[in-house]
């Protein structure tokens, strides 16, 4: 009997692999929810609140995708992933989309079989130092020991920065963020380097946040964007234009509060956007109310930013690069027409 069982198992494996060929949108619709990879422990981006509910900028981006696909922002399943796990999880179809502060790079798009959509946060790498160190610039860090939050671009940018400036340094790389913070606050390192947004979060959990300061240098560009797999253009379009819709809504002045009033607007752009004039949703393979559902249930990009990381939150990050292009920022939605 045993060899027979094995043959049956082999055949069923072959059959299953042949079946898993449908597009991501069909898979998602069949499952009834979007599987989203998330950080899980990054305050302001993806972390459970005291009630155990996932909160953050990346979380809201994921909810917007669910709102676009299902008309229901709650149809999301979150999978917390570490920096090492995140790309393989997407490649192996464990998740449908990755919304986890991941920097768009050339090698990831070409070597890892991934596509990045419109960034949901423009970040840059910086340094956090104790004020007691008495330095004013990252150029004074020659010979320093630097705690590095693991993650690919972080380690490389730091190495590039020190090499470019002809300075020596020695890294301490610890995978566990909480342990790394402890080591830094106890004085194991002279500086802590990571994306500015993360450093703001790290500083807020310091024993004495006032004793630490961010150095002015931003040593890298970190466009953090949702990621999908290569080779499924329809799904790429949906995720990409969901991001565009969040920005477009802010440009058009549509918020979760006034979206119902906006349905009566005479502005042709708003009518097209909200599906009063049908067509846009259909082109994506979605309902014509896709954008209405996003804004109604999740809000526009500005609302998401203010709610999770903005000046009124513990992170207190100014809009900066993440302001609309009309306000001198980088957020720019291509025309929805």
């Amino acid at each position, binding site marked *: 009997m045993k060899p027979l069982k094995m043959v049956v198992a082999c055949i069923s494996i*072959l059959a299953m692999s042949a079946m898993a060929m449908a597009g991501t949108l069909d898979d998602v619709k069949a499952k009834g929810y979007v599987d989203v990879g998330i950080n899980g422990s990054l305050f302001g981006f993806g972390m459970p609140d005291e009630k155990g509910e996932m909160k953050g900028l990346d979380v809201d981006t994921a909810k917007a995708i669910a709102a676009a696909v299902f008309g229901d922002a709650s149809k999301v399943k979150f999978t917390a992933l570490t920096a*090492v796990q995140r790309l393989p999880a997407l490649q192996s179809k464990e998740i449908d989309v990755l919304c986890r502060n991941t920097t768009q790079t050339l090698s990831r798009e070409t070597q*890892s079989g991934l596509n990045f959509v419109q960034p949901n946060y423009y970040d840059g790498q910086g340094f956090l130092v104790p004020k007691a160190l008495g330095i004013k610039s990252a150029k004074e860090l020659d010979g320093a020991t630097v705690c590095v939050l693991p993650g*690919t671009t972080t380690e490389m940018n730091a190495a590039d920065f020190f090499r470019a400036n002809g300075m020596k340094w020695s890294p301490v790389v610890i*995978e566990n963020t909480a342990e790394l913070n402890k*080591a830094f606050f106890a004085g194991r390192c002279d500086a802590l380097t990571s994306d500015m947004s993360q450093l703001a979060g790290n500083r807020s959990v310091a024993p004495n946040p006032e004793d630490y300061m961010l150095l002015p240098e931003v040593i890298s560009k970190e466009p953090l964007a949702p990621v999908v797999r290569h*080779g499924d253009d329809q799904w790429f379009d949906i995720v990409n234009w969901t991001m565009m819709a969040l920005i477009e809504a802010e440009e058009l002045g549509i918020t979760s509060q006034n979206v119902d009033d906006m349905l009566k607007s005479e502005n042709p752009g708003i009518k097209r956007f909200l599906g009063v004039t049908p067509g846009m949703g259909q082109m994506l393979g979605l309902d014509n109310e896709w954008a209405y559902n996003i804004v109604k249930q999740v809000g526009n990009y500005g609302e998401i930013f203010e709610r999770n990381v903005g000046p009124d939150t513990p992170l207190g990050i100014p809009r900066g690069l993440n302001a609309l292009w009309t306000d001198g920022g980088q957020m720019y939605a291509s025309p929805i027409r």
Partner: protein
Amino acid sequence: MTPSESEPKVPFWLDPGKRAIGFQIITCLMVGLLAWYLVNNTLVNMEKQSIASGFGFLEREAAFEIGESLIEYSASDSYAKALFVGVLNTLKVSFIGIILCLIIGLFIGVARLSTNWLVKKLAMIYIEVMQNIPVLLQLFFWYALFYEMFPSPRQALNPMAGLFLCNRGVALAVPASHPAYFQMFVALIIGLALGFGLKRWVKKRKFTTGRDFPVLWPFLGLSLGLPLLVWVLHGAPMQMDVPELKGFNFQGGIMLSPEFFALLLGLVIYTSAFVAEAVRAGIQAVSRGQTEAAMSIGLKKKHILNLVILPQALRVIIPPLTSQMLNLTKNSSLAIAIGYPDFVSVANTTINQTGQSIEGVAMIMACYLVFSVSTSIFMNWYNKKSKLVER
């Protein structure tokens, strides 16, 4: 009747011997087929998703820095070299760890059997406590202790000349480089070889003539005296490379990092508790009658332990000892939790940067397989050598 006629001819599919071979072949074929299917399927799927494969990335520039390294390394070196630095770091902590573990384990194991009540109970408490605290917790504990306990480099403790303790590690003065040291190293090797040769000769002579010869002092004299002689011949160079506080940290001398210390300490303390138990079990496995018999023929106490008890105990101790040595090596991969750049840590960064997880994980597996198999082969050789030779 001839024997061949008495047995009816059995068809080959009913012959148990041939049938067994047949099943072996079928099993091999099926396992091979499955392996081929899995590998092929992986490659095809990776191709379809345009994920890069192969080991070409090893030659590309690594572009990341590594905290400590036994060889010269910079961010402009290749991934292959970065990974090699990781391998050396793993070997360094495992090798030193295993040696310390054997010494401490042997000591505690013997203490556990002491007739002194206090010594016995202390050894027991050590073993029970250390075996039952997960090694990862111990690593966190020792690491936190290190950076919480010691001051910053500017207020470094200086208990003796040339030694500084601070939260960046231990800075130690070392003799400044001089051509004499390499020759001293060669002299040490020659001295050790001569010493072991002497030991063999003494053993042989004892078996044939029964006469004893003190081996310890000539052994020490040869292995330490020769390098000393070379040193004196070179005019006894005394120049020291003393660590000095420059900028953020100490320069010069050698610097041992808190990560290395914490990892070494955690691994040694945890594993030596298991080694101690193996040693105790080994000694207790030798029956009391052996000691009594040895005593009755008038052997001295140290001879009883060296010539009667330990040779028999080793047979029991070596197999569990081997597995503890392997455990220590494998547990060293927990280094990633406290920031010691071991092989797994470097390989993880590499995977993270290149996205080539299959190759990366394959290399991690291959590396630990080599470590484990070579330790095992060595220990099996030693086990065979120390086996009781029955006459």
